[in-house]
């Protein structure tokens, strides 16, 4: 028995659990849906979610119930719910497991959310590469529809909830909510200018709520066991509930670990994930996916909840914890992440589009020992010029690895550059860069 009681992963940890409808029902599935649909007023469901203190698990950590409340109150037309399953953050793989191993849990959550916000149609925007996941979800939707949990007239209550699974075409940016909407509409996946926010004008110009898979999967449990129960676990009041952390990197047992929020990083890495590979000392870790700044061993005792991590200068983000052991080249690590962001920059706004390629090229040059001291200053300035000046949050995310590595491991950069200066005989940097 694990130290912490799993909630979302509970079913799939049972031996022989296949994720089929029968299995899910046996494990007590769809009870929550039966409990609310037609019995509890939608507004009360929303109130329940607010009371539970559930916050978005996608990255930004926005309170879910509050988000639902942003929908226009007296709006009579079509509303949509979009389930953001475009999990593309490097080092994050929780949604995939939730969808592939226990799809009905997600579907039940979506159905409850749809009921709460009054949407009759929900779209699951699943990452293009998750072929298996989309097949499983499709299958699950068919099963649930046949069983009367979805579709027209859910459970005979007159409520309609239709779920459609849409596979993306392979772009990280489509995890950004407005880009996701554009992509879902069949356009180029570029983020929209906000305002208007999706709550007022989202998919096809209609009020839309976009929630992460893990967020939605929490809903059946909140309904079943009550918001008070949910609010009691984790580190209330701000960070209630459990969180699936995807631990990867130089640890003994990488994988998904569902723990209550508020445990320390040390506990997660050294107890849950079995400690460092080969028991080498830890050098750095990212607490919340690639767009979160790096943290150092000094931060091992930081509690893993939204506020504490933010205070430590990073963010909890999507819960992807990447651990790096002593000996990791931090400049290389920053470049590796930066290359990802460069590849995924959608190209809509100038600072991110041009900045990402500039940063990548400069980092490559430094790593190839052709750097110059003034490059470091340029890097910092460029990062500051990108952050906060772009349409979406991508700009803020992409500078995180550089800024944090420069903050904690600047000597590594300087060493490379000093080496470059020593080696560079009389060659100009430009001439070198050509080859």
């Amino acid at each position, binding site marked *: 028995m694990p130290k912490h009681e799993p909630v979302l992963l509970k079913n799939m940890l049972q031996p022989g659990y296949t994720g089929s409808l029968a299995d899910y029902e046996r494990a007590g599935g769809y009870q929550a849906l039966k409990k609310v649909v037609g019995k509890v007023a939608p507004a009360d469901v929303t109130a329940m979610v607010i009371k539970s203190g559930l916050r978005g698990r996608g990255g930004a950590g926005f309170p879910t119930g509050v988000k639902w409340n942003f929908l226009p109150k007296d709006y009579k037309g079509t509303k949509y719910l979009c389930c953001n399953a475009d999990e593309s953050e490097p080092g994050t793989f929780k949604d995939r497991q939730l969808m592939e191993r226990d799809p009905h849990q997600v579907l039940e959550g979506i159905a409850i959310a749809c009921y709460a916000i009054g949407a009759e149609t929900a779209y699951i925007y699943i990452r293009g590469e998750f072929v298996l996941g989309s097949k499983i979800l499709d299958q699950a939707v068919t099963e649930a529809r046949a069983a009367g949990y979805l579709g027209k007239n859910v459970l005979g209550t007159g409520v309609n909830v239709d779920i459609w699974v849409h596979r993306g075409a392979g772009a990280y940016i489509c995890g950004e909510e407005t880009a996701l909407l554009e992509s879902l509409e069949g356009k180029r996946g570029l983020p929209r200018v906000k305002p208007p926010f999706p709550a007022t004008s989202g998919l096809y110009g209609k009020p839309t709520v976009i929630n992460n898979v893990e967020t939605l999967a929490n809903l059946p449990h909140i309904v079943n066991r009550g918001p008070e129960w949910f609010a009691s676990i984790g580190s209330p009041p701000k960070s209630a509930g459990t969180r699936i952390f995807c631990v990867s990197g130089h640890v003994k047992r990488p994988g998904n670990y569902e723990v209550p929020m508020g445990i320390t990083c040390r506990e997660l890495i050294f107890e849950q994930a079995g400690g460092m590979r080969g028991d080498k000392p830890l050098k750095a870790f990212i607490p919340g996916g690639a767009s979160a700044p790096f943290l150092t061993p000094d931060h091992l005792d930081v509690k893993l909840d939204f506020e504490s991590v933010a205070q430590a200068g990073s963010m909890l983000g999507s819960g992807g914890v990447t651990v790096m052991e002593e000996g990791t080249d931090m400049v290389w690590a920053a470049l590796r992440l930066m290359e990802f962001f460069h590849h995924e920059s959608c*190209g809509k706004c*100038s*600072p991110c589009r*041009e900045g*990402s390629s500039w940063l990548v090229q400069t980092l490559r040059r430094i790593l190839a020992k052709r750097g110059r001291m003034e490059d470091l200053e*340029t890097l910092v300035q460029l990062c500051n*010029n990108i952050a906060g*000046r*772009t349409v979406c949050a991508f700009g803020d995310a992409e500078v995180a690895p550089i800024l944090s590595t420069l903050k904690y491991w600047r000597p590594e950069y300087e060493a490379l550059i000093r080496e470059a200066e020593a080696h560079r005989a009389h060659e100009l940097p430009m001439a070198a860069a*050509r080859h």
Partner: protein
Amino acid sequence: MPNVAVETVKLTIDGQSLTVPKGTLVIEAARQVGVMVPHFCYHPKLKPDANCRMCLVEIEKIPKLQTACSTPVAEGMVVRTATTVVNEAHKSVLEFILANHPLDCPVCDQGGRCDLQDFSHEYTPTTSRFIEVKRVFQKEYFSPLIEKQMNRCVQCLRCVRYCDEVMDVKALAPVNRGTMTEIKHFGTHELDCEFCGGCIQICPVGAITSRLSMYEFRPWMLKRADTVCTYCGDGCQITLQTKDNQLIEVNSSLGAGRNNGDLCARGYFGYHATTHPDRLTTPLVRRDGRLVPATWDEALEYVAETFAQLKLKHGAQVFAGVITARCTNEDLYLFQKFMRLAVGTNKLDSSARYGQVNAVRALCRIQGTHRWPVTFEDIAAAEALLLVGTNITEANPITGLRVKEAVKKHGATLLTVESLQPTVGTISNIANLAAHHFTAHPDQYKPVVLGLIKAVIEEGLADQPLSQKAPAYLQAIRDAVHALSWPTIEAATGSSAASFKEAARAFARTARAVIIVGAGVLREPGASGLAATLQDLLLLTGHHGRPGCGLAPLAEQNNDQGAVEMGTVTECLPGPCDLDDQEARARVSALWQEDLPQGPGLTIPEILEEARGKTLKALYLVGEDPVGSLPESARAKEALEGVEFLVCQELFLTETAQMAHVVLPACSYAEKDGTFTNTEGHVQQVRHAIEPVGESRPDWEIFSDLAGLMGYPLEYGDAKDLLKEIRALVPGYNLPGPTPKPSRPDHTAVDRYLQQGYAEDLGERYRYTPPVKAAGRLTLLVDQSLFHSGKFSTKAKGLLHLQAEGAVSLNPADAARLGIVEGDRVLLSNELGHCRTTAKVWDRIPAGLCRFPEHFDQEARRLLSVSIDVATGVPYYRSAQVKVEKAQ
């Protein structure tokens, strides 16, 4: 425009407080107080996209900088655009944009008028911190007219958005992502679109430039002349840019003219026609059977002398004159004055005869005025639009843009009755935007309109006040449409009764409705009747006479409307007033201090008829080419051969001019001053951009000199003097304002029509007899295409790149049935003759129809027969029944 009380908000920008309407964007508000916020992706015509991040400004109480182009103003907002933080932001964004921008300003045609250049000078240091290698795109051939240099692109997507939002063509799209984002067109072939040139005009940098004028200029060398395009009746203001008396390029600035900076392919790429090397440069006089160059004095004296002799010998009634409606109002006015005074005959006509006369007549009859009751702004603000036989995208593209704006931006309901089917293609199709579309052959417009009227009556949509005001009229229509059964209409049109009813409901229940008719109606038999029937539809639905509603017939030539108003059509005096209107005659002769000639006028077909009968001795043709433009069945050549003395005043040595005794070289619109009256009746200034080519002279000067030599001095200092005289006779020619005032219907005329006027031809108009069609034949429609206008534009090298020869377009099903594939040689034939051409398979052509561009109809014309409207004397020769087969 609708007058709605606008909410306003008060805000402060850089310390200046101002009040602007709610919803205004900060960048627009800033412009109003003279604060320029730098920007690339923002454009007033486009929805904000905020992708360049150049327009960041500081707004009090908002921690992050905001983009001025996407932030609407709010009450009490305090905006700062010139703080250190904002300045730093501008610098940094520019630094990013410049990182990959090549340093090729010296060879870039945009250099000198480039936004990026200007902002760089203003905000950035001279050296860049970017020392990496710039990204380079694969060079791609775009089109013969448009040059694309993606390395210079700043990815503002203005071109893509313009192509979609304004033009509705969607020819361009961004491809790839990140720094490698590239603007491309669809498909592997070269760019194939409307070629409106909008992407070139809207590009803030030199990424998309014109290949026609490439490397020929630097912006600071160009002299500019704002004038009016002559390729259709829309009257777009264009800026002709010249260098050393050479036309270099055409632009149209935002907010200028009736087109608000939008142009079509003809306007943007068609300017080379005026400076074509074939232009006549000296007068030509026929000596020993050959046309030889002569001096102006020789030629004019010869003409004056011969005219005087013929007049002495046969009297004034053996003279006739025809002028093209491409001339300025001043030319047209002086021509009719010359013919009426110096020559002394009413036998004059202009090319407005070919269609515009029908439109003006229908307007005059039921509305009492001869101009549109609406403006372009009313079209854009209309709630319902009915387009009948316009093919508006190709014939009048800029009016078409107003229709697109109404539908796409303001959600108007569009009904189209067109000989085109809605399909997606490389040229925008107005039928795609239609809520209700009726595909109609040219002879089916009438049953469709009758079907709509029947639906209005049967659905009880008829206007209530009308039934009290004119019960007899309403009853007459009721009886007439009752006599038509739905099966008849359904069989005649191929559309169901339900669709008519639905369309009628959509049209009738709106507050602002405009009906636009085009050449499909005005240049087909029964035109004036159908135009009147459409007015009936407006009367029935209660739209007639309401502001912002009415019938808008599209003029085909740039000054068709002016030709009628100048009295240059045979039945009119300047005003336009009826030739027999004694009061008007007195007014005109008082001003001219001369008696007006008595005797009847002659329309163009009648002039040709008289010439054939040898009763016409002298013919003065100004810019008209009957031999080259009328079908052979009109026997123009035979007619002109019978004329004793033929004078042609022309730009080129046309087929008619080759037969002339004297050819006088005239100036094109780019070389003269004057005014044009566009289709909506807006008078606009024409200004010369280059000096006359060769010895050519403005038309009015030639008339004036000729009149002097004939002893009837008509002397004017310049075109402005003429305009002054025109103002005294024709209302609406005072200083042209930025927007026209639409004419208000004259109630006495409307009442006269409602009480008795309708009766004279109502029976005829509401009777439908199905046309007899020979089996196995297709209807050939000789029609205007987007890339040309008349024969004049076929001299423009830019337009010839787009379309250099005629091809007959066939419906895919018809083509398959006939075993014809794209590019096949086909033989078109009927009783009148045959012609060989190339086939083009186009899914926009409905079954049973085939289309041929009129600009290349030298051979196809042989197939056309001419019928003449009894009421208006308009010759119709646009369609024929032909047999199509694969040529052996």
